[in-house]
Each structure stands twice: as structure tokens, then as C-alpha cells.
């Protein structure tokens, strides 16, 4: 083998440069050295003298190194591409490396690169073919899929290609298929590809197994022939001795990589029907389980890791087959041993796999035997990720018989649980206690305890749910009233407790009013003592409780009216509180007791629906809910795509309407943030795009003295962008003038009122305001001022100017408003964009879910849809998003999307010549802080435009 030093000599300049960088004492010194080098390379590349291949290679390599240090590289790509056509292997190799690391699939150079790859892929030298294949596998653009989709499979099954070429070709093809899965299934190659599983060369089989796995997922029918081949190959491996496979034996374990790939491949298919194949497969699985009982052949961790890797994959297959009780129970026992293994990794994986076993009817009981061990893990594990797995498993193994114990243990653990997993645990406890409650006193106790222990992590869904259940269950109401009353007596109780308490006493306080210790006045005073410590949303809820009290307990009417009529309420700065106090006090004074009783009748039962908590957990962790669902009933899985739900109306879960049902119209102030994402927050802010649009709103910078033009422009952009959602407000302001706008739109016509306020004490002279349209709007919008604009504005005065407009056809962009005036004999000029945007001509349309889905489907052509996935610019808040969409002109449709966090809307853009229907769907991903926005419209351009306009506002 050549020594390192001789290789190092290959590019001395590079080594010197790297040493220099390493010797830099500070970040600044490093930057300086790098900039010097970049300048040097740039001049070399630009210089007249053509560089020889060696120098090019050296400089390209230096650029690569600089890139890997974290710097941006914006040149050298062309030189790297030049290296590809070098006939020296090492130059070619460096060229390919640079391209693999630094060239993105949409590069302008892609055509050239593809041309070079074409040359190399048909080269007689296998090493060159390999380089080309590696490059395709590394970049894998759609363009490459088209260019090489036919070429690569030929290499794969060719009789002449070397083994290493076949290996590369298999994985290269895999990458191309992943890039464009629809374009290729290679049904015609299927049988030849499948037979690669029989290849003599283990490396070829290993590569091919990955390819076949993906192809089987894409078109199972074409590839089902692989099952029997995979079983026999697997069988040969597991029964071999460790000397049989030579290089492919890894720490005494025969071909662990291939074994795992084959075991995974078999999970793509149902258990084989042919008795012989099935028997052979069961034998393999038994052999793998048996081997775990044998004494280890080596003490090295690599030996046990790879052996157990095969074992865990075998267990996954056993769970997948789910019809071999004997194997399932053996698997469970094996995992049981791992639960107490000294290796943390094994404990972690055992907990994880057992979660799956808990979902099978054959092994569920066997899993439950390990309850104590798992509870113990919750208490003693030092690694939070392992404890998390223990929580998941407890959740999965919970049933009627052990629920009280498991819930109690989880509650106990919750007190000291890591912040990162508290919210999820709260959800789980809430679900389990509801699902397995044999009597509702236990359920109520549990939820209230949950609020006491971890009030901050109790999300709205949880406390809404307890109220729904209490209202629907007559037998729980008296107990609930009594218990919340007791809980509220604690000196410091969580605000969520006040919410639940306020609501329940308002409905059922009468059930405990007979006892003088909880007489009406005592109840009222207790609640009111918390009032001042609460946020406005809770106060609003309490005001509703008070009016209900007036109905329930006429004897304390006066006391309550005094509170409602107190200035603290009637003149509260919070409009919602003020309005409630005023309306409630009026309601109680002017209506008769009968009317009051009708208005404030007990809440009707809530319709039975899927628990909103379960829906929330499902969204947080789809996998962990599976077990519980599977057990419950064969619930249809719910992929988050609207189409799939057309025929499953029963799956419409609770939506956020429940907020209103509970008497809260202001959204509560504290959305529960998952602390998981703390790190994301710390760093995330760096990458957050800022709101202002890059496009210029002021075409010529104004000369208004102290105003920083850039800041003014940003501000004005910001002001403009708000008009997407509203029709009136301040459009522009500097220290001389303020421009206000008030627009009205009806169908395809509109009127824009402009208000120019002179902020100075002096007259603004030679004032003119003219509206103009760019070429892109000509003929699409008609604009006519109602009368001539004023020509001067007195100091401190405001003048109006109205413009009528008409939308002839769809347009993008906005008309301009040009203001000229003279202040202190200096002419000023401002150009603004008028908030006349296409969405202003949109009217929301309401429609039932079925219509929506029909229309959605009708607009199914690719050109009619625009979809964007983007980072949320604002905290994800459904209510705020609804308000925005409504302001934008869409009707937000309720009860259409099965996921309550998703919003769907519809509207029609009305122009003089046509009406353009638009549908929209906005799906937040709270964890990733991302949104997916899909807009469909009968006119593709409209969909694209609306999507772009909305994107940055969520």
C-alpha cells in the first residue's frame, strides 16, 4: 500500500494551504488567509495563461476545502467541469468530487456535466464508468433521470460489466428512481433485476437488494418474484458458518448488511403463501432467534451489535407477518431480556420494538408481563431518550386492567419529567384516562391532577375535552363540580384549573349549592378571588360563568351585577371583556327570569367525535398512536390528504369551534410550545426571513431630510403588504405627509379613497397625485379619478381624492400612485403602490364539504395547482391564519378538512370578462414550524400568484 506521505505530495500547495489555515490563531486570521487564497485562485482562473490540468485540479481542490470550512464558493464550477474531460484519472476524479459536493441539480452547467458523464459512462475503462455512476448517484437530478434512465439499467444487467460497475449501477439507478419515481418502474427489467439476488458476488447482491426494496415498494406486483429468492438467499446466509462468507462475515456474523436488507425487503410483501417458502422463512427466523441464545463468539461490541441488528430486523418481520404466535412470543421474551441489558442501546431498542409487539393480539399479553420493568425504566434510566421510549411503551401496553397503575405512574413521573416530553405525556395521560375510565370520578380526578402537576403543559385540547365529557355524562357532573370546587380552594391554582372550574361551576354549580360550605355566594367569591390574576381569555370565561350564576342562583344576582357594572369591567381596555360585562349586565337587568333561563339553559351534549386530544397526539407522533388504534378497532388510517377523505365523513374530528362553544371568543394567549424545539428557536432566528418584500415600493428615494430612505422604504413596503388583508389604513408616512387609504370593492369594480394629510404647519404647494399603470396592467384594469386631485394642502389639513376602477381581466402587480409636492421650496416626489391587488376582486364562497372536494378534484391538472412549502414567518396560530385568509378575500370553510389545524378556503376572482374560482389549503406543521400552501384555480397563473402573495405572510 502506498504511504500517506507519497499521496500527500500529490498536491503540495493544498497541504501547505491547509497547514496555514490550521495555524491561524483567530477566526479573523483564518478569514484573511482564505480571502487571500480566493483572490489568488480567482486571478489564476481569470488569467490569460491557460492553466494546466494539475494546477486546475489543485485550485479546485482548495476551493472545495474552503467550502467545507463553511464558506460560500461562487466560482470555479466551470474549471471543475473542464477537469471532467481531462484524460488523467486523478483530475477527472477531483472534478467529479467538486461537482458532487458543490453543484446543485439546477445548475446552468448541468447540460455540460451530463455530456461529460455520457462520455465516461460509455468509456471502456471501468474506473471511469464508476466515477460517472458515482456522480449520478450523488447528484441525481431529474434531468439526469431522463438522460441516463435507460443507460444505467443496461450496465446493471450486462454480462460484461465488472462487479463494481454493477454495484454502482444498482445504487445509481436507485437514486434516479427516487428522484423521479413515477417515470420509471422498469417492469421490463424486473425479472433480470430480481435475479441479481442470486448473483455469486455478495457485493452485487447487497447493492441490488436495496434497489429491489425500493422497486418493490413502488410496484409490488412486478417484483413479487423476489420473495422466494430473498428467502432462499437469507436461508443460505443464516445457516452458513462464519468462515463460509469470508470478507462478508463481520465479527463472526455472516453478512449482517445483506441479511438486514433481505429481511426488510420481505416486509414489503405479505407472508409467502407457498408452504415451502413460508416454512423456510419461519425456519430462518427461528434460527436467528436461536442464535441469540448461543454464547457470543466474541466479546466485541461489534459482534453483538451486528447480531442484534439482524435480530431486531427479524423481529420487525415477525411483527409484520403477525400470524406466528410462537415467534411473536419468543420475540417478546427476547426483548424482555434486553430490557435489563447493561447496554443502553439495547434497552432503548427493546422498548421501541416492544411498542410494536404491544399492538399484536398474539403478543400483547406477553408485553404486559414486563410492566414493572418498564415502569422501573421510567424511574431509573439516565438518558431522556430511553425514558421517552418507556413512556411510549407504557402507553402502548395500557389496557383496562392496568390503566390505573400506569396512569398513576405516569402522573408521578410527570412531576420530574424532562420538559421536552411533558406536553406529550400530558396528552397521553389524558387519552388513557379517558379511554379506560371505568368510572368517571377517576377520570375527573386524573385530569384535575394533571392540571395541578403540569398545568403549563395542559393544552387547550385537554381541558376542553374534560368539559365535553363532563357535560355529556350525567353521572360525572355532581362529582366534577365538587372536585373542582375543592381544587379551586388551593391558594395557588393554575389558570387552567380556573378555566375548568369556572366552566363546570357555571353549568353545574347548582348541584353542590345545597351544602352551605359551597353555597352560591361561596362559589362566586371563590371564583372571583382568582379573577384578577387571570389573563383576559380566562376573565371572559369567568364573566360568562357569572351570568350563568345569575340564572342558577337568583339570590346572588345583586352581588354579581355589582361586579359586572363595576368600572373595572364596563370600562375595561379589553373590548371583549367590556362587551361581555355590558351585555351580561343588560341581559340580567332587562329580561325576565324565564328568558334568562332559556338563554342560559344547560349546555346540550356535545356530539360524539374523535377525541381532539387523540388527534393532537396523532399529529405529534403518528407512530405511537398506532398501537392503541389497532387495538381499538381497525380504524382506517388517515393520511393527511383531502382526497382520501371524501368517502370517510365519519372521520371529521373536533375542530377548533369548541373554543366558541366554551364561550371564549378571544384566542388564549399562551399556545403551548413544544420545548423540543428550543434549539431550533435559538438558531432558527438567524435564518428567518424578514417581512419586507425585496421589490421596491418607492422608485425614487425621497429627499425628505432626516428620513433614512432604506428604512422608509422598508416601512412603506411593510405598510403596503398589510393591505393584502385589509382595505383601509395608512399607506405611507414620512415627516411631511401621511397618505391614508380606504377602498371598497364590489365584484369587478372598486373605489379607492385617498386621504392626504399635511403634517407640517406650512402649505404643501404644487401638489399632484396621479395614478399610473405599468405596461403589465394596461388593458387589464381601468382607472378613472372621480375628479381632479387637489393642487395644494394647507398646513395640518387633510384632503381627499377618490379614484374609481374596474378590473377587466386577471392582472398581477398594482397601479402606482405618484405624489409630487413642494415643501420649503424643495420639490418632493414619492411613488407608492396602490393597494389594488387581484385578491381585492375576490369574493369568498361558502360550500359544503362534498362540493369542495368535487371542485378540488376538478382542478386537478398540474398547471392549475401551485404548492409551496415554507418556513413559518409568524407563530403558527390557526385563528390568526383564519383572520388573514378571510381578510384576503377567501371564505374559510369549517368542517371540511379532517385535520382541525389545516385551513381550507375558497373564493372567486371576479373580473369584468370572467370569473375565476380559487381553492386553497394551508397545512401547518407545528413541529417543523413549516407550512404547506396549496392553491388551485381554474387559471394556473392565478393560483401561482395567490400562492406567492400569501407565502410570506404565514
Amino acid at each position, binding site marked *: 500500500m*502506498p*504511504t*500517506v506521505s507519497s*499521496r*500527500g505530495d*500529490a498536491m503540495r500547495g493544498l497541504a501547505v494551504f*491547509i497547514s496555514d489555515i*490550521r495555524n491561524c490563531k483567530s477566526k479573523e486570521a483564518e478569514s484573511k488567509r482564505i480571502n487571500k487564497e480566493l483572490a489568488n485562485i480567482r486571478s489564476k482562473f481569470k488569467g490569460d495563461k491557460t492553466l494546466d490540468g494539475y494546477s486546475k485540479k489543485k485550485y479546485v481542490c482548495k476551493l*472545495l*476545502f474552503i467550502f*467545507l470550512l*463553511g464558506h*460560500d464558493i461562487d466560482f470555479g464550477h466551470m474549471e471543475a467541469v473542464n477537469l471532467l474531460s481531462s484524460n488523467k484519472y*486523478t483530475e477527472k*476524479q*477531483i472534478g467529479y*468530487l467538486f461537482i458532487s459536493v458543490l453543484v*446543485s441539480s439546477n445548475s446552468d452547467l448541468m447540460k455540460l456535466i451530463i455530456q461529460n458523464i455520457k462520455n465516461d459512462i460509455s468509456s471502456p475503462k471501468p*474506473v471511469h464508468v464508476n466515477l460517472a455512476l*458515482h456522480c449520478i*448517484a450523488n447528484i*441525481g437530478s431529474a434531468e439526469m433521470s431522463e438522460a441516463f434512465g435507460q443507460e444505467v439499467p443496461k450496465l446493471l444487467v450486462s454480462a460484461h460489466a465488472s462487479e*463494481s460497475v454493477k*454495484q*454502482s449501477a444498482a*445504487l*445509481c439507478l*436507485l437514486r434516479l428512481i*427516487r428522484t423521479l419515481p413515477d417515470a420509471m418502474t422498469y417492469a421490463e427489467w424486473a425479472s433480470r433485476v430480481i435475479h441479481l439476488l442470486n448473483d455469486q458476488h*455478495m*457485493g452485487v447482491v*447487497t*447493492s441490488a437488494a*436495496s434497489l429491489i426494496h425500493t422497486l418493490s415498494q413502488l410496484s409490488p406486483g412486478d417484483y413479487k418474484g423476489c420473495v422466494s429468492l430473498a428467502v432462499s438467499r437469507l436461508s443460505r446466509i443464516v445457516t452458513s458458518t462464519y468462515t463460509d462468507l469470508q*470478507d*462478508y462475515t463481520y465479527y463472526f456474523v455472516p*453478512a*449482517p*448488511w445483506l441479511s*438486514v436488507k433481505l429481511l*426488510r425487503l420481505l416486509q414489503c410483501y405479505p407472508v409467502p403463501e407457498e408452504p415451502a417458502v413460508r416454512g423456510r422463512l419461519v425456519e430462518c427466523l427461528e434460527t436467528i432467534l436461536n442464535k441469540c441464545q448461543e454464547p457470543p463468539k466474541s466479546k466485541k461490541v*461489534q459482534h453483538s*451489535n*451486528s447480531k*442484534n*441488528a439482524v435480530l*431486531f*430486523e427479524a423481529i420487525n418481520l415477525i411483527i409484520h407477518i403477525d400470524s406466528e404466535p410462537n415467534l411473536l412470543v419468543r420475540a417478546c421474551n427476547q426483548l424482555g431480556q434486553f430490557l435489563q441489558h447493561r447496554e*443502553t*442501546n439495547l*434497552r*432503548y*431498542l427493546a422498548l421501541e420494538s416492544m411498542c410494536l409487539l404491544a399492538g399484536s393480539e398474539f403478543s400483547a399479553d406477553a408485553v404486559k408481563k414486563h410492566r414493572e420493568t418498564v415502569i422501573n425504566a421510567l424511574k431509573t434510566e439516565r438518558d431522556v*431518550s*430511553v425514558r421517552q421510549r418507556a413512556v411510549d411503551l407504557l402507553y402502548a401496553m395500557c389496557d383496562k386492567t392496568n390503566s390505573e397503575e400506569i396512569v398513576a405512574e405516569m402522573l408521578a413521573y410527570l412531576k420530574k419529567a424532562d420538559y421536552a416530553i411533558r406536553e406529550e405525556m400530558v396528552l397521553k395521560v389524558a387519552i388513557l384516562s379517558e379511554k379506560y375510565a371505568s368510572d368517571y370520578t377517576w377520570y375527573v380526578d386524573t385530569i384535575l391532577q394533571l392540571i395541578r402537576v403540569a398545568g403549563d403543559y395542559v393544552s387547550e385540547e385537554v381541558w376542553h375535552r374534560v368539559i365535553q365529557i363532563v357535560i355529556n355524562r350525567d353521572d360525572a357532573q355532581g362529582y366534577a363540580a365538587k372536585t373542582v370546587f375543592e381544587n379551586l380552594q388551593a391558594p395557588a391554582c393554575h389558570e387552567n384549573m380556573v378555566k375548568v372550574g369556572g366552566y363546570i361551576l357555571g353549568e353545574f354549580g347548582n348541584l353542590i349549592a345545597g351544602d352551605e360550605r359551597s353555597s352560591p355566594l361561596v362559589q362566586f367569591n371563590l371564583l372571583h378571588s382568582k379573577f384578577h390574576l387571570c389573563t383576559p381569555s380566562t376573565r371572559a370565561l369567568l364573566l360568562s360563568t357569572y351570568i350563568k350564576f345569575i340564572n342558577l342562583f337568583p339570590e346572588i344576582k345583586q352581588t354579581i351585577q355589582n361586579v359586572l357594572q363595576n368600572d373595572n369591567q364596563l370600562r375595561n381596555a379589553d373590548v371583549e371583556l367590556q362587551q361581555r360585562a355590558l351585555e351580561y349586565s343588560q341581559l340580567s337587568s332587562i329580561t325576565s327570569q324565564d328568558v334568562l333561563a332559556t338563554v342560559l339553559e344547560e349546555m346540550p351534549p356535545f356530539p360524539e367525535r374523535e377525541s381532539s386530544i387523540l388527534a393532537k397526539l396523532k399529529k405529534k407522533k403518528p407512530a405511537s398512536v398506532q398501537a392503541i388504534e389497532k387495538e381499538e378497532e381497525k380504524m382506517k388510517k388517515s393520511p393527511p390528504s383531502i382526497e382520501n377523505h371524501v368517502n370517510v365523513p365519519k372521520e371529521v374530528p373536533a375542530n377548533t369551534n369548541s373554543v366558541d362553544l366554551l364561550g371564549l371568543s378571544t384566542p388564549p394567549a399562551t399556545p403551548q410550545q413544544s420545548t423540543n424545539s428550543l*434549539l*431550533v428557536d435559538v*438558531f*432558527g432566528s438567524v435564518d428567518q426571513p424578514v417581512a419586507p418584500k425585496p421589490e421596491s415600493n418607492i422608485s425614487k428615494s425621497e429627499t425628505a431630510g432626516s428620513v433614512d430612505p432604506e428604512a422608509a422604504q422598508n416601512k412603506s413596503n411593510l405598510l403596503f403588504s398589510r393591505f393584502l388583508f385589509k382595505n383601509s389604513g395608512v399607506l405611507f408616512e414620512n415627516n411631511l405627509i401621511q397618505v391614508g387609504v380606504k377602498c371598497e370593492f364590489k365584484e369587478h369594480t372598486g373605489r379607492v379613497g385617498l386621504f392626504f394629510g399635511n403634517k407640517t404647519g406650512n402649505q404643501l404647494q404644487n401638489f399632484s397625485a396621479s395614478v399610473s399603470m405599468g405596461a403589465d396592467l394596461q388593458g387589464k384594469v381601468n382607472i378613472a379619478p372621480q375628479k381632479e386631485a387637489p393642487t395644494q394642502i394647507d398646513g395640518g389639513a387633510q384632503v381627499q381624492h377618490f379614484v374609481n376602477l374596474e378590473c377587466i381581466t386577471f392582472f398581477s402587480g398594482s397601479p402606482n400612485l405618484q405624489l409630487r409636492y413642494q415643501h420649503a421650496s424643495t420639490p418632493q416626489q414619492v411613488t407608492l403602490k396602490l393597494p389594488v391587488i387581484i385578491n381585492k376582486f375576490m369574493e369568498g364562497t361558502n360550500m359544503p364539504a362534498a362540493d369542495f372536494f368535487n371542485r378540488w378534484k376538478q382542478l386537478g391538472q398540474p398547471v392549475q395547482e401551485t404548492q409551496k412549502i415554507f418556513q413559518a414567518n409568524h407563530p403558527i396560530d390557526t385563528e390568526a391564519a383564519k383572520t388573514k385568509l378571510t381578510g384576503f378575500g377567501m371564505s374559510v370553510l369549517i368542517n371540511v378538512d379532517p385535520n382541525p389545524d389545516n385551513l381550507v378556503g375558497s373564493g372567486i376572482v371576479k373580473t369584468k370578462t370572467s370569473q375565476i374560482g380559487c381553492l386553497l389549503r394551508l397545512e401547518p406543521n407545528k413541529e*417543523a414550524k413549516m407550512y404547506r400552501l396549496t392553491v388551485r384555480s381554474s387559471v394556473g397563473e392565478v393560483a401561482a400568484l395567490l400562492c406567492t402573495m400569501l407565502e410570506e405572510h404565514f
Partner: protein
Amino acid sequence: MMRFMLLFSRQGKVRLQKWFNAIGDKERKKITRELVSLVLSRRPKMCNFLDWKDYKVVYKRYASLFFCCAIEESDNELLALEVIHRFVEILDKYFGSVCELDIIFNFEKAYFILDEFLLAGEIQESSKNKVLRAVENSDALQEENQEAEATRSILEEFGLS
């Protein structure tokens, strides 16, 4: 499939990065930053696996270097750990008891080795000897070139070319 592999030092300096699917540069930097600090904050003897965003992260420390890779939900964690180990073994054999410096100064070699071992995020060749042989073959080509180069420069020096 493996989504990416990162090699970084105890100080958090990234020494090698390999991304197996198309992710924007900005997103890569963000992932790297977050993941490096997450892994560095973990104590020894903790479990080698992490659930992180949509990834399962598997990491292991070898001397001063952390080897960290992200795999998919259905992938096998233990085997990923051994992918890392096999890669370390190959580097070790190639460089002769590899250390961080070898990877810094010969980063391009590390990439070539990785391409022979993993491709498209899947194991291409699990045999250590076969991977090494492939890399040595291409080194041999390099040396042929160098000799040719050396001859040429001598000729040039004497003004004979």
C-alpha cells in the same frame, strides 16, 4: 437509507459531510449546527440513538472525532452504528491508524473511500478488503499519472519537451 453523514471534532468543527439527498445549502448548515451542538451536549454512556426531527440520528465517538449519521424511520439503528464502525476501520487501514489530521489533510481521499463504501445512502460494498482494493486501484492510476508528470517536468527543465 442514510440521509447524511457528518464527521466533526469535539470542538464542533465539521471535518467531513456527505448528504445523500438534495437539501439546500442553508438547510444543511442549519441541520449541521443544531445536530453538532445536540450531540456534543450528550454525556458519554448515553444511548447512541436519538429521535431528532424526522430523523433517527446514530452517532459514535472515535477518539477526538464524532461520526454521526441520520437514517430513516424504518432503518436499523444498530446496523447504522456498524456502518460507522466499518467506515472507521476502512479509514484506519488505509491511512494506517487514522487520526483526525489524516482526514483534514486528505479529505478528498476520505470522500473517495466513502463513495466506494456507501452510495445513494446505501451500503455498496460491505467487504473491507474490496473497498480498499478499489481505492488503491485508483491511487495506482494517480501514481502513473504522477510519474508521467515527473518525467515531463524533467524534460521541460532540460528544454527537451
